[in-house]
């Protein structure tokens, strides 16, 4: 395969005699605008550097580390460069003025896109570097380039004896010209892609050496905590802080936009002083809806408005009206918190050149805007350094913690670290939106004839726009930020802002062969902040669609696997994973007494996943015994990383299915910590079998697709077990039969 994008790569020499290839990678963003324009000067965002000592360093600007990205991207470089992945050092460059690329649109790590978008250009860049190294070796040995082979970080002479390590070739190589086109390796020749399985960050993470946001150290660091309004929409009124100020270690107490900040010499002193604050909040405009009230609002909206048509084939509405043999069901998915293990935090320091921010964030661009919004600095005076993230799952796409720490650092003028408690983290999250799903379907024997899916709930971009819209225009003056944000909302689905698929993704792609299909979205927003949550819309659409499919199979008197296959005649990749999972799970085989199986199939982020869950109910508790998961994610770079992402995604989904619940009473969030926002634990973890399908299609997302099918597969197993349909999460053990 040839890659000819000369304008994406440049070769140069660095001070110490190193060779530097700079490249412009496409955005790793799920919401990305136009491609960068190259007319306005060279603005690379990735650098591959080889020095005479033999070090190989790959630096990525603006790309934040996600699950396995570090290992995956390094493997791509290693493959085309012919050097073991362990010998490459990956660095994440900060977002700051040095790295500013004004042509660039918003960049975030999310939507399981990192490997999908880097696959081609990173390999192409590394292949070009290999090419100039080989040319240099050819010049030294006076042989033809084609006769030279490369492996283990060295060029090998055709005589089979002599070798030249890359380090010895860099100075000569950096004077070669880059080829317009390079041949990428054929997959039969891969040494590392599809084979390399060691996580390169594992060692740092088992020795305590990995630096997360919460671990950032600065000389003279002080600590901050913030008391925020106890209800969404409540405002600060007044504070009595005399007692707090007397507490040991307290440096200052003051209000910021988001609440009341206490700054002290140590974190614990700040917490102790915070307890002494007496704050009055104005609750006049506070949101006082609970889960029930939200769903009452949604139902009313769904009754009143048929919503926007998102997909329409044939005449679903007509056919459904015309038949008496209509089958209907309604599903509820609640609000959910992210609960990353590392609570939200950030560190900031004002220096004579501006502000430095260290944050575990999925969106350093937006972090910069958030810091600028609340401080005296403009975005190009702010540098954002990213760290290891103690979990993301979408939580760190919004930047409230950066906004807070920047406002505080701007005032105290000492390096300051802000840490949220777990209670604050759960109560001030941006939640997975609660959604209402209504289905109507008509069956003809064992075939679905018509399918109508109405999704009711908010759009995430309404809440996300605040910093995101401004981050797309970093040169805009600060007073325009709010305008940009509302413009982002107003212009949704125009050339300025791409369409927000968050409510409908996983529903509009309904894969089954049905003549009349209608998918629609009715907008309803309860005023509760929402954001991206692992697998986003797929998390609730996967649950609803695959449960309703199971209901229809039951209605038709068909086996759930056979019923799905019957509607997948032209969908070979769907069929393949479904058949594999069913076979491996021994779908029709005998089961121990008191257990049942359920199945679900869902494609998200380009990846096809089928799961069979085996469950029972013991002592009024749901037990998940086994999950078989078949996955087709295209070409795999690190198969074991795919496997671990499936395992983690399944456990994330099962956690939502068993426990996930966020609710309010009188506007106050009831959950606060892990005793009442429960996560699956080791002793509840099922045996998980992951089957990976070999594929030569391009690599697809793996961080999220494991989550959606786990929820309906478990619900469908519980139906098979008890005869009670699970139409809302978390599932109930209901009438136990054991």
């Amino acid at each position, binding site marked *: 395969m040839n890659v000819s994008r000369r304008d994406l790569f440049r070769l140069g020499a660095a001070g110490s005699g190193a060779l530097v290839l700079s490249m412009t990678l496409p955005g790793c963003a799920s919401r990305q605008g136009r491609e960068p324009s190259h007319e306005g000067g060279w603005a690379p965002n990735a650098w591959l550097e080889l020095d005479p000592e033999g070090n190989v360093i790959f630096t990525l600007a603006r790309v934040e580390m996600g*699950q*396995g990205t570090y290992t995956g991207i390094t493997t791509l470089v290693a493959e085309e460069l012919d050097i073991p992945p362990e010998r490459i050092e990956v660095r994440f460059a900060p977002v700051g003025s040095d790295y500013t690329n004004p042509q660039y649109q918003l960049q975030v790590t999310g939507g399981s896109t990192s490997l999908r978008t880097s696959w081609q250009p990173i390999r192409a860049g590394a292949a070009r570097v290999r090419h100039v190294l080989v040319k240099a070796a050819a010049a030294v040995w006076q042989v033809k380039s084609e006769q030279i082979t490369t492996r283990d970080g060295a060029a090998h002479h055709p005589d089979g004896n002599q070798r030249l390590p890359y380090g010895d070739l860099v100075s000569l190589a950096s004077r070669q010209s880059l080829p317009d086109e390079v041949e990428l390796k054929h997959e039969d020749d891969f040494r590392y892609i599809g084979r390399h*399985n*060691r*996580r390169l*960050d*594992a*060692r*740092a*993470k*088992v*020795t*305590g*050496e*990995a*630096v*997360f946001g*919460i*671990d950032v*150290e600065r000389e003279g660091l002080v*600590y901050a905590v913030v008391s925020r309004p106890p209800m969404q929409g409540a405002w600060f009124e007044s504070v009595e802080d005399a007692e707090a100020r007397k507490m*040991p270690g307290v440096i200052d107490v003051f209000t910021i936009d988001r609440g009341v900040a206490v700054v002290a010499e*140590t*974190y*614990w*002193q700040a917490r102790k002083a915070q307890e002494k604050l007496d704050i009055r909040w104005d609750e006049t405009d506070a949101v006082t809806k609970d889960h029930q009230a939200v769903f009452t609002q949604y139902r009313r909206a769904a009754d009143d408005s048929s919503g926007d048509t998102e997909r329409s084939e044939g005449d679903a509405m007509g056919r459904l009206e015309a038949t008496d043999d209509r089958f209907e069901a309604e599903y509820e998915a609640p609000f959910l918190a992210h*609960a*990353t*293990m*590392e*609570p939200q935090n950030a560190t900031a320091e004002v220096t004579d050149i501006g502000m430095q921010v260290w944050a575990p964030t999925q969106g350093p661009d937006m972090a910069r805007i958030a810091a600028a919004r609340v401080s005296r600095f403009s975005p190009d005076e702010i540098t954002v350094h990213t760290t*290891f993230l*103690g*979990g*993301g*799952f979408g939580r760190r796409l919004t930047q409230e913690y950066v906004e807070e720490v920047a406002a505080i650092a701007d005032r105290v003028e000492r390096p300051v670290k802000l*840490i949220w*408690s*777990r209670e604050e983290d759960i109560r001030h999250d941006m939640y997975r939106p609660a959604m209402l799903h209504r289905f109507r379907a008509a069956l003809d024997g064992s075939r679905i004839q018509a399918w109508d899916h109405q999704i009711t709930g908010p759009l995430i971009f309404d809440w996300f726009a605040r910093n995101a819209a401004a981050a797309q225009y970093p040169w805009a003056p600060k007073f325009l930020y709010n305008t940009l944000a509302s413009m982002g909302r107003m212009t949704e689905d125009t050339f300025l802002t791409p369409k927000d698929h968050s409510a409908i993704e996983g529903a509009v792609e309904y894969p089954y062969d049905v003549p009349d299909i209608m998918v629609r979205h009715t907008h309803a927003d309860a005023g509760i902040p929402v954001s991206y949550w692992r697998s986003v819309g797929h998390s609730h659409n996967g649950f609803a669609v695959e449960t309703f499919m199971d209901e229809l199979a039951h209605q038709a008197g068909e086996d759930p696997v056979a019923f799905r296959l019957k509607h997948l005649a032209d969908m070979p990749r769907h069929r393949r994973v479904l058949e594999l999972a069913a076979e491996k799970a021994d779908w029709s085989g005998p089961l121990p007494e008191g257990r049942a199986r359920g199945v679900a199939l869902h494609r998200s982020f380009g990846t096809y996943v089928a799961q069979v869950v085996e469950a029972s109910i013991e002592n009024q508790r749901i037990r998940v015994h086994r999950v078989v998961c078949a996955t087709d994610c295209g070409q795999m770079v690190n198969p*074991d*990383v795919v496997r*671990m*992402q499936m*395992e*983690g*995604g*399944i*456990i*994330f989904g099962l956690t939502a299915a068993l426990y996930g619940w966020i609710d309010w009473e009188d506007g106050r969030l009831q959950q606060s*910590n*892990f*005793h009442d926002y429960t*996560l*699956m*634990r*080791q*002793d509840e*973890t099922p*045996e*998980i079998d992951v089957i990976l399908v070999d594929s030569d299609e391009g690599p697809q997302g793996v961080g999220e697709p494991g989550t959606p099918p786990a929820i309906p597969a478990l619900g469908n197993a519980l139906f098979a077990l008890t005869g009670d349909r699970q139409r809302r999460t978390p599932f109930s053990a209901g009438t136990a039969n054991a």
Partner: protein
Amino acid sequence: MSRSLRVNGTDHEIHSDGETPLLWVLRDELGLKGSKFGCGIGQCGACTVHIDGRAMRSCITPVQEVSAPVTTIEGLATEAGLHPVQEAWIDHNVPQCGYCQSGQVMSAVALLEEEPNPDDERIRRFMSGNLCRCGTYPRIHAAIRAVADGGDA
């Protein structure tokens, strides 16, 4: 007033107030950031350290109550190399985000010291105090199993 605390074989003078949880003394006064803050109420195990060889939740242990020597994740490896549990963690590709893993490793080491060859049920129960939002549980179990079966913990 200061008190003394033995951490990873070294004695330290501690100046934090006696009620300060050990976790924050380790992290902010001694600069040992390997032990993590996850919940502050003994629910997640991210802050697990050994006090007198036993796995304890340092977020709910006031430093004034600590009289025995403390071992943290930073004190696990020796001159000879990583602890076998750490090696097993790497071999099994356990960490994802990694944030919970210091606590997981410390709990696993304490388990294996108490009981070098635990059965599967015992591993499941003992390790249930350590949450992992990334869902690395199957690999944690496999890694502990491997160390136990290898008999070299």
